[in-house]
């Protein structure tokens, strides 16, 4: 039977649930937990890559991705408490790109917090970004959860300050994902010291959510799916009972569990990236846990792009991926196995053909 067409029974079931929940397209994952902390949701939009062609002309495709994510976020019910932007608002860090992106983000009805991405940073080292969005790394607390925003796309000083003849050249070099002239991302010693001092003040039972552009793991160096000081940062997070890291940059569904830290990647609104295992010439480490997103049909410009809303329930994160032209996906913490899992496709027997990447 064509999965696109609901049977009447499915339809009636869905109608009842949806009528109760409002405009929200996905049911809120209810996890059984003895002590319920405050539950809330927030939305996550990332990797818009607004790209200037010339003057006031921008790449139509990426513009539409951000516009749609914002419009749909505004329809969410229950309303999200705030919205995160996950980094890479512009493609080459230009003022025109950041302004154009900020204008689209300004249509959001909820408070916005932003994460720095490398495409925003390497032209002017985040100077204009600060004018628009504030500090590059910071923390905030919300309903009993401690949120940390890292600038995790820094790199070695030598590369940043001495290597390139111009800021534009430096930005171009970092902009190429597969550019062998690039340099690995890191949080860096200074920021790690700041993080340590901050976390020392936080009770170890407080749930911690870290927002980062780079994965805070070492996945595939060739495409900078990589944080050079991942182990050091993870060590700082180790003392906490419940840690969730949410990262951008990879433009694909990924999730993983290292020790007590659950890692979740977010989708890009602009374009999808291949999984590193599809590059035949490279050895790479992809989290075994991840059930890949569906492969893109490039005709549909929004295919394999999307945005997400995050359901925080008793300090654990459930990622609801809102995907265009695809079945939405939920990756939620499974208390039985102690890992994030895809609520439908985790079992290999349930996978569908577009999830096979080769």
């Amino acid at each position, binding site marked *: 039977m064509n999965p696109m067409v609901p049977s009447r029974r499915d339809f009636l079931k869905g109608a009842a649930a949806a009528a109760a929940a409002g405009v929200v397209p996905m049911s809120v994952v209810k996890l059984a937990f003895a002590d319920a902390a405050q539950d809330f949701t927030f939305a996550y939009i990332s990797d818009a890559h607004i790209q200037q062609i010339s003057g006031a002309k921008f790449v139509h495709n990426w513009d539409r991705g951000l516009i749609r994510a914002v419009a749909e976020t505004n329809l969410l019910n229950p309303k999200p408490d705030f919205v995160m932007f996950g980094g890479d608002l512009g493609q080459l860090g230009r003022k025109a790109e950041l302004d154009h992106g900020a204008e689209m983000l300004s249509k959001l009805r909820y408070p916005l917090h932003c994460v720095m991405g490398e495409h925003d940073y390497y032209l002017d080292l985040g100077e204009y970004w600060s004018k628009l969005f504030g500090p590059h790394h910071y923390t905030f607390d919300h309903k009993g959860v401690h949120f940390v925003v890292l600038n995790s796309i820094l790199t070695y000083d030598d590369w940043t300050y001495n290597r390139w003849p111009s800021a534009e050249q430096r930005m171009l070099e970092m902009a190429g994902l*597969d550019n062998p002239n690039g340099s690995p991302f890191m949080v860096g010693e200074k920021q790690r010291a700041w993080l340590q001092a901050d976390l020392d003040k936080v009770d170890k039972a407080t749930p911690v959510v870290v927002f980062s552009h780079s994965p805070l793991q070492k996945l595939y160096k060739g495409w900078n799916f990589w944080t050079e000081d991942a182990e050091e940062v993870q060590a700082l997070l180790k003392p906490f009972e419940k840690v969730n890291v949410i990262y951008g940059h990879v433009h694909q569904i990924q999730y993983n569990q290292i020790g007590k830290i659950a890692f979740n990647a977010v989708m890009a609104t602009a*374009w999808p990236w*291949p999984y590193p295992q599809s590059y035949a010439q*490279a050895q790479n480490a992809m989290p075994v846990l991840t059930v890949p997103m569906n492969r893109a049909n490039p005709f549909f410009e929004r295919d394999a792009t999307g945005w997400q809303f995050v359901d925080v329930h008793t300090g654990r994160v459930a990622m609801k991926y809102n995907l265009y032209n695809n079945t939405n996906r939920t990756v939620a913490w499974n208390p039985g196995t102690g890992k994030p899992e895809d609520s439908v496709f985790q079992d290999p027997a349930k996978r569908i053909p577009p999830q096979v*990447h*080769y």
Partner: protein
Amino acid sequence: MKRKTAVAVAAAAVLAVVGGIAIRADEFTKQDQERWEKEYMSVVTKGRELWTSPQLGTNGVACAQCHPNAANTHPETYPKFQKQLGRVIALREMINWCLQQPLEGKPLALDDPKMVALEAYIAHERRGVALAPGKH
């Protein structure tokens, strides 16, 4: 008999001229292979340049933006039925589709040297993967 000797003498003369290396018209040497390999890599390099160039289309988008290291191009599956064109096609027709659609540019002639370079780069990054024509 005389003729054979004459030929042998002539051949020996040629050998002497060429300085002792025996080269037949349809044999090639290790040096030839190395040189040809370099010729090929020069085109692969050209393909890589095009791959990262914002000039292929009209909107500044480069192939490498969606296909780092030409990943996800699946050259080993061509020819195959391509949904976006409604028929079975060869790889270069899909390259042209990408040039026109996401890159909003003009297609290349199927025998354009640039097209060959793009294919050479794609194939080089996918070397070693077995043919699987028609696969989705």
